């Protein structure tokens, strides 16, 4: 054990001063002389044929270098798992906000002024406003070429329909379970698509060099994915592409895929030697770049009279919008975790990703789990009501435990977190068992509580990797290089603590490289799925071990001992049995120099690697497989106050307890959880796109699209349970996204209890609550 361990303490993160002072440089702060600027024309319609685009006047405008439309790249299709999206709309537009034309000019004003001269004639087509509409017989088929799209094998589109992916889970004998059940409930729920609203709008700056190399600076969570996907979309090998990413101003999944980079790259290739900047305005970021999916869900549960779940029949219809992007894997992730953290022996699930004419959807914090959790928690509430059972007791009774089989049939292993303990802590915090769950206050307002459970597994490729390199400076300090992006989450700070712990050294002797560069940084899948501290942490620990071996080898010679008899701690390498025989690290890490000038060793470079072991894909017919690495389990609860006069709702307190294996940095961990809970409150109570009958977005600016603000937040309570994850560094597992997952469920339960009616749609605005109360009063 390290007596000077920093694990479990909360040092100030090293990037905090620059962030607080506003001096941290983000991607769009890179201003390079000679940069060409762009302006993009967006579709005002959700679904229309493009009949004509008039660009001649714009092309002739002052300062304009070129005007481009979809016809300029007739064969390029971009996608993550399935290439279905042209860089600019071709032939038709499929959502409000789709890029239709782009002007490249010497400066931004020229580009914008010329853009106003581009004239497009549209012939409107009927627009699909929900997955169910898109699946109805006779619905227009948004992607008639679906069969021809390149895709990975895990994605199963159904050509001739609007189904971009269908994931089937079949486990046990659900028909028998429903026949044998004492109680069956069926729940439906839905919410519209929305947006991440990251503080930094997306930007990509591309330059095509005279050497035929493409350089991209991007506000991306996934520089290596961007390189790989660009290579495929452009038919250019990875060796000719470099992607650089600095710190980004929030992503929440919205920067995990491929976004502005392909168009920026294609434009750059038309103007070799000049950087081309493609930057979103806030409105473009909301509408044109991908947001989060909407959902329509149906969950049917079969249970015994004592509340034991026997089976489930589940249908998730994800609203992917006009293109598939990450949504085809979001729907798959929801299938993998479809039951929520409950033991359901018999199961039939179909999780569909469906094209509609909404803004398209990508990864979003929780990645399918907030959606599935909302659907299953609503069904659990119906079941509890039917059984007249305490909703927390029903959850406890069915809580998933070690040895239970997950929906895909693989058993929960010895790393299974302690869900009952999490639930107990939230119950205690809310005084769940001591006080009634619904109380009418003297002023007429109603206070009500709700509780939910959640789980989340990272939805990742079976071969998700992380590399780490550790090198040293003259002062003996260590620098860790990884492919992990600083996205606000503080993973660099966590990695710094892990390395300091492993080297048993002071924190200020460890530094983590901030910028990621695909030419220089070790490969890393993506900064997503709450896996960075786990996987890059594992790689970092291996890099430390590798460096220690090199340090021992160098130091053993002058210390005249065997390498394995040496330990590294406190900035020294010393003989274990005789600590007074030591060398300071600064005399070893770049090589040892004898008094006479002779030198041995050379710079220590620690190498660390991690790749997910033992993961499989899913059987296409049954979903059987082991696609998950680890599960974070937890419980959440809220107390709300509803004013029956107008439905106004306020969250008084919100509690979360989750089993994270090991807390490395309590303040950052709490910050992640509180941020996720706040996001979950906004998701549940105020966010989401509003559409008109033609599926044109009505709230496409921050004047109208409202997210939670500071000052509107409840008292937060965050607690951690630490059941070790044996394959995680120091026993830790992921915690970045999970706090959002249970929020729609417990808020819906509390609000339903308050208004006396089952609520099944988000967002639960005051007007929605008031209307429900009016209906149930009738």
């Amino acid at each position: 054990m390290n007596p000077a361990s920093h694990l479990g303490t909360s040092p100030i993160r090293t990037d905090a001063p620059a962030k607080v002072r506003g001096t941290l440089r983000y991607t769009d702060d890179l201003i390079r002389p000679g940069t060409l600027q762009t302006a993009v024309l967006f579709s005002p319609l959700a679904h229309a044929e493009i009949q004509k685009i008039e660009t001649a006047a714009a092309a002739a405008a002052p300062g304009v270098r070129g005007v481009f439309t979809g016809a300029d790249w007739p064969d390029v299709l971009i996608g993550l798992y399935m290439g279905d999206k042209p860089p600019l709309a071709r032939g038709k537009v499929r959502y409000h906000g789709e890029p239709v034309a782009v002007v490249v000019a010497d400066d931004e004003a020229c580009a914008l002024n010329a853009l106003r001269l581009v004239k497009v004639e549209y012939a409107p087509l009927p627009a699909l406003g929900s997955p169910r509409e898109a699946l109805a017989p006779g619905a227009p088929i948004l992607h008639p070429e679906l069969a021809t799209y390149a895709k990975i094998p895990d994605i199963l589109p159904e050509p001739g329909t609007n189904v971009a992916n269908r994931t089937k889970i079949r486990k046990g004998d659900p028909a028998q379970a429903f026949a044998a059940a004492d109680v069956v409930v069926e729940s439906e729920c839905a919410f519209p698509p929305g947006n991440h609203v990251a503080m930094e709008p997306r930007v990509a700056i591309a330059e095509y060099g005279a050497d035929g190399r493409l350089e991209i600076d991007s506000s991306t969570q996934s520089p290596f994915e961007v390189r790989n996907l660009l290579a495929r979309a452009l038919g250019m090998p990875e060796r000719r592409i470099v992607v650089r990413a600095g710190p980004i101003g929030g992503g929440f999944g919205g920067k995990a895929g491929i976004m502005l980079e392909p168009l920026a790259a294609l434009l750059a290739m038309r103007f070799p030697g000049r950087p081309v900047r493609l930057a979103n305005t806030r409105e473009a970021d909301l509408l044109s770049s991908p947001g989060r999916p909407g959902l329509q869900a149906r969950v049917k549960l079969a249970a015994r009279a004592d509340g034991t779940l026997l089976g489930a029949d589940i249908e998730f219809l994800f609203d992917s919008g006009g293109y598939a992007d990450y949504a085809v894997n979001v729907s798959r992730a929801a299938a993998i975790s479809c039951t929520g953290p409950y033991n359901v022996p018999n199961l039939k699930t179909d999780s569909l990703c469906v094209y509609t004419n909404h803004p398209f959807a990508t990864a979003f914090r929780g990645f399918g789990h907030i959606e599935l959790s909302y659907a299953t928690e609503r069904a659990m509430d119906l079941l509890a009501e039917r059984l007249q059972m305490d909703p927390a007791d029903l959850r406890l009774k069915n809580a998933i435990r070690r040895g239970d089989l997950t929906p895909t049939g693989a058993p929960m292993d010895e790393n299974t977190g302690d869900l009952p303990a999490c639930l107990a802590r939230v119950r205690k915090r809310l005084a769940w068992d001591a006080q009634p769950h619904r109380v009418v206050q003297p002023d007429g307002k109603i206070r009500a509580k709700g509780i939910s459970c959640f789980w989340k597994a990272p939805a990742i490729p079976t071969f998700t990797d992380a590399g780490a390199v550790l090198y040293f400076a003259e002062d003996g300090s260590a620098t860790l290089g990884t492919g992990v992006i600083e996205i606000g989450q503080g993973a660099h700070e966590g990695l710094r603590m892990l390395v300091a712990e492993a080297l048993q050294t002071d924190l200020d002797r460890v530094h983590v490289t901030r910028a990621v560069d695909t030419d220089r940084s070790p490969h890393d899948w993506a900064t997503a799925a709450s896996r960075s501290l786990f996987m890059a942490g594992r790689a970092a620990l291996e890099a430390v071990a590798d460096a220690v071996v090199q340090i021992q080898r160098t130091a053993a010679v002058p210390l005249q001992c065997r390498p394995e008899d040496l330990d590294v701690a406190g900035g020294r390498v010393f003989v274990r049995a005789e600590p007074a025989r030591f060398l300071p690290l600064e005399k070893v890490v770049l090589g040892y120099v004898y008094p006479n000038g002779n030198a041995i060793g050379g710079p220590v470079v620690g190498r660390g690697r991690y790749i997910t072991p033992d993961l499989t894909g899913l059987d296409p017919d049954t979903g059987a497989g082991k696609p998950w690495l680890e599960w974070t389990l937890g419980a959440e609860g809220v107390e709300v106050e509803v004013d029956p006069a107008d439905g106004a709702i306020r969250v008084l307190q919100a509690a979360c307890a989750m089993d994270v294996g090991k807390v490395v940095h309590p303040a950052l961990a709490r910050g992640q959880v509180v941020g996720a809970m706040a996001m979950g409150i906004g998701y549940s109570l105020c966010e989401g796109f509003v559409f008109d009958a033609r599926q044109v977005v009505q709230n496409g600016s921050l004047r109208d699209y409202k997210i939670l603000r500071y000052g509107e937040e409840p008292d937060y309570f965050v607690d951690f349970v630490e059941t070790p994850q044996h394959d995680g560094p120091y026993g830790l597992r992921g915690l970045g996204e999970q706090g959002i997952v249970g929020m729609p469920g417990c808020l819906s339960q509390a609000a339903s209890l308050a208004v006396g009616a089952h609520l099944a749609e988000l967002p639960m605005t005051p007007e929605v609550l008031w209307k429900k109360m009016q209906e149930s009063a009738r």
Partner: protein
Amino acid sequence: MIAADVSYLCPDTAEEAVDAWRRHAGARYLAGGTEIATAARRTAAFDLRACIDIKRIAEANVHEICGGCLRLGAALSLSDVAAGDAFPLLGAVLRGIADRTVRNRLTLGGNLAGLLPYREAALPLLLADASILTIVPGKGEIPSARQERPLREIFDKRLVLAPGELVLSFCVPLDAPEWPWSHYRRTRTGEVDYPLVTTAMVRVGDAIRFAVAGAHPYPFRSDAVDALLTEWFAARGTDEENSPPSAAQNGPDSPTAQGRGGLEAIIAALGPLRADARASAEYRVQLLKNLIRAGLEDLA
């Protein structure tokens, strides 16, 4: 970005401002600039060639009691007016608009003269029978001229101004801040949003005055509604059943109240309410009923 080349003019006096307007075709007066910046950035059709910044004009920054009235410059920020607190109802209304950082930019004149339909700052000024001082640009040999008129005279859903006419200040009679008042504001969700309904009410002796924003695509005050409210308010003492119940009770409207006009008649007199992406007309009616009840209770 704003792609146009814009001339920026910063006059010291009202006369210079209106003269600048005459000299620069298509010039706009610039106060806080929040609407201009958004419109110029996002709307291709928004014509922006010259801005005449009125924030340096002393007359538009006056904030004092003189000549028997409280005079408030049009270029004062909402934060400054609210902090002055000389007219508590106005301060309360202004503190409901946007958030503190934005209120530091928004101006009193801009809130009334802007394009957004809410113009909540108009409510207290309409209730107070405030007057408005403007300056009209000269024409040919005719010099520019100031005009002071009752606000209600030139406020028909919005300020009705002559081309180039610049608002300089508002004058609030000194008795207005003394009247009992009430203000409520309801939004779709969080506090920082445009109002679904903002109500402002004062009691002048036994007479109730009422103004509302958000319920219509413009701020609303009418003598007919004031008369109905006054009547309903007066009936409160004589008939317990008929007294305006508190919002929290959420009971059905009492039949006697309806029989004598009461709340339903008041709502009817407001005409059809706005329905938009934020809320239905039906919900706005409910909010209005709650807030009128609550307001009258405050004034009792």
